[in-house]
């Protein structure tokens, strides 16, 4: 797919999408746009409303307010047409345990109007793609979780969807399995040009594979953008934090750091200095240290890592919603 096509073709769009369960607002006026060929990660803790959002996108749950559109079709009213082009991989996907993997795929294919050679060919191609050829003729009741997940991806691809929605695809899979899965997801977007929306609370995996991410807390999307954009959004918000370790580690080093323009505070954490400054001082600090004969062993901008971004956003959200937090805890307990 050409790069020019990739930009500015909104595939998934929600406008003020809202869903309430009694008192609790699961999704609160969500505005979300996902472009074609993009891998978008919906990140948030349990009970943040990620699954509810995906269900509304598939027309499986009716929104209370606002609307969700895929390819310009209303997901609630036109759900059949939407579901023809949208594949959904639910979290903890299940198969008919008395049927083999191949039979399960055949059933899905037939439900999507495939038959004959076209059906069989597609099953074979997809089984190969997810590396499930050997287990294809075993009953799915004997499958491990990772195998079910891989078969789930083949199952989603049976209808050749333009949009794939995955709910917690990495849950309960071993690291090697996750690596393969992420590679496959990336491949779906880059080679096939499919749009992918995946929700997760496991940040590290998502970070590697997503083009853009939205951070979702208490039904609200509190930040959205690429990894760098998210980092900048935090950076602007007050202080920038830096981790530094240099050789030789002496009193003079501390003086130099303190003397830097913009440094607010400095603390020592085992062999690392944690430096808080009002703006990014990496460049000037590195230059000065090397001029004065120090060797920089470690220099890292804290906050560019998703984990920290995530934690920071949650801290912020926690301050705003201190009273609501109890509510969400009881929800996730349910």
């Amino acid at each position, binding site marked *: 797919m050409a790069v020019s096509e990739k930009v500015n073709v909104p595939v998934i769009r929600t406008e003020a999408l809202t869903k309430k369960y009694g008192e609790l607002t699961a999704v609160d006026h969500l505005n979300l746009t996902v472009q074609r060929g993009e891998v978008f990660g919906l990140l948030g803790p349990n009970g943040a409303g990620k*699954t509810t959002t995906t*269900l509304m996108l*598939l027309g*499986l*749950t009716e929104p209370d307010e606002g609307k969700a559109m895929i390819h310009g079709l209303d997901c609630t009213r036109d759900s*059949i*047409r939407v*579901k*023809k082009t*949208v*594949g*959904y991989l*639910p*979290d*903890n*996907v*299940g*198969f*008919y*345990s*008395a049927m083999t993997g191949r039979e399960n795929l055949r*059933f*899905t294919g*037939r*439900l*999507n*109007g495939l038959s004959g050679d076209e059906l069989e060919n597609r099953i074979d191609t997809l089984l190969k793609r997810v590396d499930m050829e050997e287990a294809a003729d075993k009953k799915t009741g004997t499958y491990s979780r990772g195998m079910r997940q891989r078969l*789930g991806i083949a*199952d989603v691809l049976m*209808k050749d969807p333009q949009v794939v929605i995955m*709910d917690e695809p990495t849950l309960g899979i071993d690291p090697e399995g996750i690596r393969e899965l992420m590679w496959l997801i990336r491949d779906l977007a880059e080679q096939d040009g499919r749009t992918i929306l995946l929700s997760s609370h496991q940040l590290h995996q998502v970070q590697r594979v997503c083009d853009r991410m939205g951070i979702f807390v208490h039904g609200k999307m509190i930040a959205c953008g690429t990894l760098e954009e998210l980092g900048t959004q935090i950076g602007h918000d007050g202080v920038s934090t830096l981790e530094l370790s240099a050789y030789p580690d002496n009193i003079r080093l501390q003086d130099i750091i303190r003397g830097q323009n913009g440094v607010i505070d400095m603390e020592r954490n085992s062999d690392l200095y944690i430096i808080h400054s009002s703006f990014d001082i990496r460049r000037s600090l590195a230059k000065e240290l090397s001029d004065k004969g120090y060797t920089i062993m470690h220099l890292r901008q804290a906050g560019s890592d998703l984990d920290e971004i995530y934690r920071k956003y949650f801290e912020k959200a926690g301050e705003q919603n201190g009273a609501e937090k109890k509510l969400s805890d009881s929800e996730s307990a349910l």
Partner: protein
Amino acid sequence: MEQKRNYQILRVLFEKETADFINGKRMLLFTILIGLITVTGFYAAVSGLHAETAGSETSAGFLFLRLFTVSANSIPSYNSLMALMGPFIGIFMGFDAINSERTEGTLNRLVSQPLYRDNIIIGKFLAGLFITAVMVFSSGILIAAVGLISTGLIPTGAEIARLFIYLCFCVIYIGFWLAASILCSTLCRHAATSALACIALWLFCSIFVSLLSGIIAEALYPVDGNDLQSMINEVKNYSCQLNLNRFSPYYLFGEATATLLNPSVRSVNAVTVSQLSGALSSTLSVGQSLLLVWPHLTALAALMLIAFAVSYVSFMRQEIRSR
């Protein structure tokens, strides 16, 4: 176009459900159950028929149909076995129809396919009804065939027609229990709860309704004493009890099939002596018998459809999340 596609999807679902029934371990259970009903019923018929024909010469007509209604000593007839045990076939088929898909996590995968959600539940119901029909008809025809060979009775056209209608009744009766169990499976999250609920309903219909109706009728129209009032009450008491009993599909089925299989049953309600005067003592034709049980047929079919409609609506309104 859309209509045709919809029909195709329903067919795919129907085929899958039917294949599931046939390949599943449950089919073994059905076969054993229906086999027991058939063998026991037939055994009762053959041993009871001999004693009965030896005793009297008047009931020589419609002997063939008696294969289904005659009981011997303590062994119940085919018909009463069907009334009592038939519901289990329906219950076993449907009690985990929806909730097992939910717990296996296949339901949300299924509803994310481009199909109308009602096709899922309709497909399950039709597949169950189809399997029921096949089993009931093969069991009924088996008895007829073995009866034909072993007793040498040759059925008349009217008898064959009655048998056919009777077997349709059985299918609808079991269909009601299938619909009821599908209803339980949509309402209950766990298969075990839903099975228990179905069995409770079965117990209620087959035992408690008759007890309750007796108590209620007794309370409303007491028949103790020798005055005129209690004589009037006697009829009212009987009618009241009868009508209350008819709420139970078990009773409806029993009454209807007794009428169908025995052409000499001329009325299903209480009959006064004055109504009987001038009546010819003959048997009813098929059409007349059918007319007599038409309300029963309608009521049974309505009960089945109501149970299915409630499960349909509750299923359509349910939110389907992952397990």
